[in-house]
């Protein structure tokens, strides 16, 4: 464990990158997954078809292959996202590698967010949507004002599982140019073969801490959102 403590800044840097990957692709997946879920329950057949095809394709494809598609295949045909390196936000700019990893994680996680949310939509009483329509609200308003808020409340538990899976899935980026926690752990074990177990434990604890923070916030949220039925 000495190896970790004497290079603690490296350890923290690695986990901040893991968290950055998680936060950016988590927000992306929640937004895109919600849009997909609205498509799936919406009135337009073309969008319904697109969303269900998307979920079928992406959910059945291993994350590693989606990474290969965006981080290796895409680059080959010119989709390298190099332009993002010129964009600066608050003095911080993302690398093309970071963006490619976030896209892969977002594309993958969105399918699961969509399905979790769809089950939540199904749990909303049909009368709610009918009442909203009866007072003349268009589909978008029905979803954003009436259905989705109730659906989100119903799926906090399963959505947490999707998010927790995303945290751990960020480790796949280790093989695609990101020096995040798992990649840094491999550097540590390679340089300190005699401390393999200690290093492994330290990095495992790092992941546990992040997951527990998310899990506890989800419990808190669940308690706050609880409604009498």
């Amino acid at each position, binding site marked *: 464990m000495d190896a970790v403590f004497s290079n603690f800044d490296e350890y923290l840097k690695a986990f901040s990158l893991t968290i950055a990957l998680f936060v950016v692709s988590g927000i992306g997946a929640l937004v895109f997954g919600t849009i997909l879920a609205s498509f799936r329950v919406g009135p337009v057949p073309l969008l319904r078809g697109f969303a269900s095809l998307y979920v079928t394709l992406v959910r059945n494809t291993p994350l590693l292959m989606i990474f290969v598609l965006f981080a290796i295949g895409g680059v080959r045909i010119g989709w390298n996202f190099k332009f993002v390196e010129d964009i600066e936000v608050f003095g911080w700019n993302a690398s093309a590698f970071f963006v490619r990893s976030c896209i892969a994680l977002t594309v993958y996680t969105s399918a699961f967010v969509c399905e979790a949310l769809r089950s939540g939509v199904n749990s909303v009483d049909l009368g709610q949507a009918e009442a909203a329509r009866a007072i003349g609200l268009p589909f978008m308003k029905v979803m954003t004002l009436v259905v989705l808020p109730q659906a989100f409340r119903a799926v906090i538990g399963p959505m947490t599982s999707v998010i927790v899976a995303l945290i751990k899935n960020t480790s796949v980026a*280790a093989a695609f140019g990101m020096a995040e926690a798992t*990649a840094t752990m491999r550097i540590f074990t390679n340089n300190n073969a005699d401390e393999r177990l200690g290093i492994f434990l330290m990095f495992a604890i790092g992941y546990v801490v992040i997951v527990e923070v998310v899990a506890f916030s989800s419990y808190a949220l669940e308690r706050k959102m609880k409604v009498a039925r």
Partner: protein
Amino acid sequence: MRFTTTKAFVLCAGLGLALTACGEAGNSGGGDVDVDVAKDAASSFADGSRMKELAEDGKITIGVKFDQPGIGFKGATDDQPQGFDPEVGRILAASLGIESDKIVWKETISDNREPFLQAGEVDIVIASYSITDERRKVVGQAGPYYVTGQQLLVAKDSSISTLADVKGKEVCSVTGSTSLDNIKKEGAVPRGFDTYSECVDQVVDGAVDAMTTDGAILMGYAAEQPDALKVAVDPFSEERYGVGYSKDHPEMCQWIVDALKKSQDDGVWAKAFEATLGKSGVETPTPPSADACS
């Protein structure tokens, strides 16, 4: 490698010497170099030693890399790995009286070399395995049998010509490798990939500015695509490749050192080098002398 085999085949066929000449050129059974397999090797080792057990079993499991042309490479359709490391493995096996086709090759990646040795998954590891003090605490490492150094592989038209040029540039290698750590200390942005071939593709596609690892490996890739890639920068580290063995069998060290010494003296080591790494155009170096076994 594949190219030269094809060329040799075309040449042979063209000259009409097909059967007799080409029979030797193929390497159906084992390596590129003929190694004399020791007769009755078991009797020359002390009772109870691991070498005697292996020689009596007539079988040895060797961990090598499968993705480093010139060093240790096995294509999807090959049945035997090719490269300098497998050749060294064949030399060592031969000194135990084990034929090349009785060697069980197991792919080891950088991450699992120590665990494989400790768990007895492999008997020895010959996998571009640099000797370090930390590694010697958990496993035995005999050698070195080859000394190389870290260099850069860049696109043919790249402006990188000195080590200082990598500052701020993106440089890839295998995730977790020492090379990646070293280049980071030079101010480059490290980009880790699972395999060297993915990393080479990134250089060719222009997604990263350079690839870094031991010069021996880079030369193999540069030789495969001479129009797109070149090796730049003089070696800036010293990697001493050693043979890994389990600490449970410390007696293996002396056997490895002796067998290496013998192959260096009788020229087999040089032949193995010429048939593998030497193909990329580097001169055969003077073999390094191995560390004493403690």
